[in-house]
């Protein structure tokens, strides 16, 4: 039987959710509606007038092969950063879950990267990966010119992805560890008695059981890579060299704020927003179903 707490007072609930609604309205719906309006007009940078442009801004973007370049790059970035981050986090979590020596310490240590702001991490990693002065740059002493993110787009993109993945490890680790500890000990022990080694138990027992968590993390990581990559790219490469680290969110910034093309940037942000809404939708659908199944 369904049980619900019901407010008899008609005004109180609205008062209670009022502040939150106001925040969402001011910081989400109002800017979004502005962006939507600009996406269908030609907006003058300094304000003071705009012209109806219909779908022109969108057609302009879709015709631009450089835009598709950033879409592909964003996709690759999302998969690579997510894959790397989740793999490392899962490995760490499964070791911590096995209650080895020092587990208590590692439980908290592995979460720390999540507490570091992206731009701060970006500055640190830019130094670490700097071709002339950095730690990784030391390999240039052995093989000159082998590592140069300042001129090589692939190196630069790899550098940003590694940094992004590193930042996400803490978050993924917490969820994986929690999921692993939710699995009843008896299942694992039964597997062990049947002679399955830890890696086999991981593949056949634990992974299927933490699949819902893994899926949730997958979606969250992908969404985060679409939006949170901005701070990293801005501090590490500013989209360069030759725009080869420009992902969708960074192109919005470059076109809108540096190029003063507010309308083009607004149209791009609408596309990105639809993409994120789509991913969120998939996640809700899928996660709901899995929860009922379990």
């Amino acid at each position: 039987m369904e049980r619900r707490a019901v407010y008899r007072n008609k005004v109180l609930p609205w008062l209670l959710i009022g502040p939150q609604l106001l925040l969402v309205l001011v910081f989400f719906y109002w800017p979004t509606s502005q962006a939507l309006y600009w996406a269908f007009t030609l907006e003058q940078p300094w304000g003071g007038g705009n012209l109806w442009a219909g779908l022109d801004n969108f057609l302009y973007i879709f015709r631009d092969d450089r835009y598709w370049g950033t879409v592909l790059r964003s996709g690759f970035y999302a998969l690579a950063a997510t894959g790397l981050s989740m793999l490392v986090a899962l490995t760490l979590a499964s070791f911590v879950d096995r209650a080895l020596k020092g587990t208590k310490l590692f439980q908290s240590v592995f979460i720390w990267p999540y507490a570091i702001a992206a731009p701060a991490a970006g500055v640190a990693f830019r130094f670490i990966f700097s071709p002339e002065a950095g730690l990784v740059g030391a390999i240039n002493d052995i093989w000159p010119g082998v590592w140069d993110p300042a001129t090589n787009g692939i190196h630069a993109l790899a550098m940003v992805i590694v940094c992004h993945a590193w930042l996400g490890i803490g978050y993924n680790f917490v969820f994986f560890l929690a999921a692993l500890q939710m699995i009843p000990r008896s299942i694992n022990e039964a597997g062990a008695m049947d002679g399955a080694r830890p890696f086999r138990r991981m593949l056949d027992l634990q992974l299927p059981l933490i699949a819902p968590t893994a899926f949730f993390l997958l979606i969250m990581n992908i969404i985060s890579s679409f939006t949170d990559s901005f701070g990293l790219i801005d501090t590490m490469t500013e989209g360069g060299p030759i725009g080869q680290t420009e992902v969708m969110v960074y192109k919005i910034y470059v076109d809108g704020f540096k190029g003063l093309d507010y309308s083009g940037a607004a149209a791009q942000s609408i596309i990105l927003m639809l993409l994120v809404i789509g991913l969120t939708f998939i996640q809700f659908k899928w996660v709901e179903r899995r929860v009922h199944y379990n």
Partner: protein
Amino acid sequence: MKSNWLLSAALGATALTFASAAPAAAATKFEFWYGLSGDLSERVQEMCSRFNASQADYEIVCVSQENYENNLQNTIAAFRANKQPTVTQISDGGVVDLMLSGAFLPVKQLMEENGYTIDWSNYFSGIASYFSTSKGELLAMPFNSSTAMYYYNTDALKAVGFDGLPETWEQVEDVARKMKAAGYACPIAFDPTGQWQWWEQFSAIHNQPIASKGNGYGGLDAEVEFNKGKFVQQLAWFKKMFDEGLMVHKSKAAGQTANEAFTAGDCQMTSSSIADHGSFSKQAKDGVHWDVAMLPIWAGTERHNSLVGGAALWTLKGKSAEEYKGAAAFYNFIAQPAEVQHWSTITGYIPVTNSGFESMKAAGFYDAAPYKGRELAIKSLTFTPVGEYTRGVRLGNFGAVRKEIQNAMQAVLFDGVDPQKALDDAATRSNEVLRKFEQTYKGQQLP
């Protein structure tokens, strides 16, 4: 969704800025946003203090926005939220957008209305042509003006047996080659994001069109033409020099900027603004001797005047009459010969008036170190009377066009793209930017 975040962040930052500006007490307070940082920012703050100390009616509050680009972005965000400063510093690249916006008060009108007489013909014609209407009405107050120069390490020149300073690109290539042979790892520091000195100024002194219709002065329907002139060969030459290790990539991304490499003695030649003359004097490592010269030209070509760089002060609409009085008083203050001279001395920016320059020259300012050589900037700016392609560049969203050139230079240097193809691509994209800009301001004319 990111743009929402950015927008709210921008609004939040703006709100914070204004929360810290307390309401006027006795003196009328007004704000001045500028795009300089570090040493130059401190010089601006000192100027503001001098103005505040010089009178009791107005108080100027000077806020650094780090660089021109940020200042433009923040000023626009503030203007749209009706929180703009009274005075803002906008550089050459942002002029057209601002001109068409009608968001400003022309400086000539402002000064007349507030009872100041300023001899506008006293300002250098190159500066005036960048910041005034086609009819010659000056729209913004000339403030910090510069042009691009070429800097040499004189010890390295001596080491390869070159007397004096090179004047042509042929000589530059020759000394670079000799320096390399003599064991200098980096003869020329090259920053591909320095399109201002390597591309715009090159085009001007060789009288090459950047865009049709007199670099855009003739109307918003101008098209870029930088892919048809001498710059194509120049970019191919950059590539050749880069591949031979005679030019070395130095930039923020590489971990050392071109200026840092030069003052540290790591690179022996670089091209930069005359405004860096002051900081080079201060920052040059012990034992690094250097000198400055006009940009080299190709032998057999005729030298034209270089473009004025830097920025001017724009008075934004929507403020009170009292604040405008304050702004006018401030402009009048910085136009005084003593102040012009002081500002030029401590920075390296050129004195913006003819009389300022003459009086400094007469006083022997340019005769000895550390200021010797700065007069060459004036020589470069006034080498010929400003012509169709040397008065400036008047293109909408010029920042986006500059970015295309940066990308083209990087693509040629780093990825081996053919210079003609890279510039053709950049031109196609630049023209799209210009057409979109023209659409946005449909039916409007350049003032």
